């Protein structure tokens, strides 16, 4: 019996491409650092490289257009923002070094983009889908957040409602009731965590647009399972808190409404990868010396 492989497409968020381009460079420059996103981003690209005919990876138009801006801003915010140099010559060298680093990363970004499919998106359908995404964001903000999680008393009330079947039942002992309340309390706390991140960035138009583009592209691949790989736990990927527990209220909403699974690159890698590739990764990702 032949093995059926489900067709897959992975849309990459800007931060995955930008971080991968920085990370590859850092490794090539032999800078002794190790970053938690390094293995993740590179592993995912190794799958695209290994299975080119399937064209698994996708870069949406917005990701393509904003990648250089995101890269420049990320590097500048860190290397330049707190700089206080009076000597213009020293400052010039510093600026030139930073420009060179951005350019080098951009070179790398082009080679990473070459591994990805870069489809066009119909503006008409995109606008319709953006409306649906904005509607979802409003639902999360106005209904989920405001009614259930934004204030402490609401969270307590939510715990109370969930625990009610047990706490009002005379057959349960007090310590058992308390245990149930604690369990529901933890659950509500977890659910609120990703929402807090989401609200800190609300309204997150860029992520909303990337999601709308993905939904539009998905129309052209009705028999494919769609994923979005992102390092951003405020919109796409679940927030993982202590003990490996996930806070994924927003992520689940996206999956329920649009049938798109969002997660960190590593999780997507394990979802799409075949065992032989996991065993024999193309790119060596283990030999970076820790700082």
């Amino acid at each position, binding site marked *: 019996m032949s093995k059926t492989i489900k067709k897959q497409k992975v849309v990459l968020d800007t*931060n995955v491409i930008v971080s991968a381009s920085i990370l590859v460079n850092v490794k090539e420059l*032999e*800078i002794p650092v190790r*970053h938690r*996103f390094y293995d993740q981003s590179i592993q995912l690209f190794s799958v695209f490289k290994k299975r080119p005919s399937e064209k698994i990876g996708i870069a949406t138009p917005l990701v393509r257009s904003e990648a250089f801006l995101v890269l420049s801003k990320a590097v*500048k915010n860190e290397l330049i923002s707190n700089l206080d140099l009076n000597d213009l010559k020293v400052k010039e060298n510093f600026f030139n070094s930073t420009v060179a*680093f951005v350019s080098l990363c951009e*070179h790398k970004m082009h080679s990473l983009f070459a591994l990805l499919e870069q489809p066009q998106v119909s503006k008409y359908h995109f606008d319709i889908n953006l409306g649906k995404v904005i509607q979802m964001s409003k639902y999360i903000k106005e209904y989920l957040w405001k009614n259930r999680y934004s204030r402490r008393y609401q969270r307590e009330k939510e715990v109370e409602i969930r625990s009610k079947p047990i706490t009002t039942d005379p057959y349960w002992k007090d310590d058992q009731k308390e245990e149930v309340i604690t369990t529901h309390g933890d659950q509500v706390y977890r659910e609120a965590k990703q929402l807090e991140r989401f609200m800190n960035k609300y309204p997150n138009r860029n992520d909303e647009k990337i999601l709308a583009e993905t939904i539009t592209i998905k129309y052209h691949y009705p028999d494919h399972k769609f994923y979005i790989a992102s390092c951003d736990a405020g919109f796409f990927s679940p927030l993982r808190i202590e003990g490996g527990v996930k806070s994924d209220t927003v992520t689940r909403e996206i999956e329920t409404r649009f049938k798109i699974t969002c997660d960190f690159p590593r999780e997507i890698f394990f979802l799409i990868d075949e065992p032989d590739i996991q065993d024999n990764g193309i790119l060596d990702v283990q030999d970076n010396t820790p700082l």
Partner: protein
Amino acid sequence: MNIPVRERTLKQITKSLNDMETTGQVDLSILDNLNELRQFLQSIKTKWLQNKNSDGFYFYQAVRNIDLILDKMTERFKKSKENRDNPKIALDSLVLLPAIDQVLKITESDVINDQTIDFVLRTTRDLRNVATHQNLIEPQEVDIALIDKEQLKWEFENIMKNIDMPTHPPFKVVKDDKETESCT
């Protein structure tokens, strides 16, 4: 004062390149025009270096990219005979001039706000894309030689943190690093 310099220099360069295209011969007197443009670039770069606003870096970056493209252009003109790059280098350079003009126009202004930053970054990206297609971008080795690895080593972790939120004001970052750890 600066605007006439840009217009005059670019006009001279355009004329020389058009002449080369017509005659099919490279005229190395264009190197003087390129040097003049380079001096003008230096004055804009100095202006942005003196600017206390750190966002001035984006404008500096734009001009610096033109600088590096001119280096490559000069090198190709000088070696055009031996590399049989004659007059292709003239045609390639000609394609790039509108993008250079656009970048210079925005960097001459002193206005720094979200719109001008966005615009200068987009024009820089477009300029680099055109330069790449015309083979007028410096090779990666040049970039590598210019990078201060020590500086990068210490700032690297923080650069990565910034990737998440470049188009928004920094949001509250969860203190416990385990919360942002994707795999435990």
